[in-house]
């Protein structure tokens, strides 16, 4: 299959985007909490914890009293040397996993992480399948036209053979003249 320039460009762009995303993920994974200042760690945790009495707000976004209290507790625990994991666990033990803005990628929660990938993959496969079917339909139509041209040619040959057998001459000008010749012969 020949790759047209536009398509080659799209493939290259997609490859670069994928590589960039992988590099970003690797970089993010390499930045440990020890590389951050206590304030940066606190802000990170503030964005990871939901306010238990607010509608879909993290404690970073909320100004509810309980959110302010939770922010203070986060800072106290950082000062006491607790890790981000320990601080998250503290809140999860009291408010359940709903206190986490992003659920842990384990157990049933894996569904939440896998579902978008499955949906995107399924959507992409459906699109590819539909496009392939459309292309196959178009190829079939072209083949049908080619087949009918072939049939015309075979019919012409057959008619020439019939003309020859019954004694009508055909010149190189084609069927119409042959027909005229046949008609004049009849007259």
């Amino acid at each position, binding site marked *: 299959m020949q790759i047209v320039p536009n398509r080659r460009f799209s493939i290259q762009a997609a490859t670069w985007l994928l590589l960039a995303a992988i590099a970003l993920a690797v970089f993010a994974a390499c930045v440990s909490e020890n590389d951050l200042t206590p304030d940066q760690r606190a802000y990170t945790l503030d964005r990871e914890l939901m306010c238990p009495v607010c509608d*879909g707000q993290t404690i970073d976004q909320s100004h509810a009293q309980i959110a302010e209290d939770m922010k203070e507790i986060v800072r106290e625990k950082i000062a006491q040397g607790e890790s981000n994991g320990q601080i998250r666990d503290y809140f999860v033990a009291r408010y359940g996993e709903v206190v986490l803005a992003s659920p842990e990628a384990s157990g049933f929660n894996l569904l*939440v992480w896998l579902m978008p990938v499955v949906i995107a993959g*399924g959507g992409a496969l459906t699109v590819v399948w539909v496009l392939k079917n459309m292309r196959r339909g178009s190829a079939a139509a072209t083949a049908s036209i080619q087949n009918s041209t072939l049939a015309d040619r075979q019919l012409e040959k057959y008619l020439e053979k019939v003309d020859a057998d019954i004694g009508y001459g055909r010149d190189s000008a084609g069927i119409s003249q042959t027909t005229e010749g046949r008609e004049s012969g009849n007259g």
Partner: protein
Amino acid sequence: MTQRRAIAIGVGLPLVLLASLLAWGVAQNGGAAGRPGVNSSFGEVKLSAQPNAGFQLTTLDGSIVSLEQFRGKVVMVDFWSSWCAPCKAEGPMLAETYRVWRDRGVEFVGIAIWDERSPVDDFIQRTGIDYINGLDDGRIAVDWGVRGIPEKFFVNADGEVVRKIIGPNTEATLSRVLTELTDEALGIRTSSTR
């Protein structure tokens, strides 16, 4: 498989799965996308505090009390606010129930949260509450996993947090729990109606 059916499955199935996940999430959260700070309906819920949770509370008269010092008694720890309507409604009942139960090995501790000193004092005087009360700076509430008010935790005679009730109580609902816990402390087996 026809093209139309493939598209229906490719689009419909993920949508159904997404809707199921959303429904599950809402059901997990008690039917609400987010909880307000006031528990206006009564119910016993899953325990949020650790069984060994404790507190150090500065009471309104300035002394410091800890849960530890009530070991051997059944303790009801009530998180409330003077501005919360269900808390205000049940205040007189709590005061009366305490008078009935205080000589039966039961202690009540009120912890006012998200509130200020003056309205708390005012409310306690008006309702005649005479059990220990203090104003929390928010640490105890978070440590006990409080989501709204009123919320009551019940601590058994061994100092373990064993039950949690949210919303406004009646004398009957409160007495039922206290009966069960005091019976348990005395080694009397009662048929629990939890």
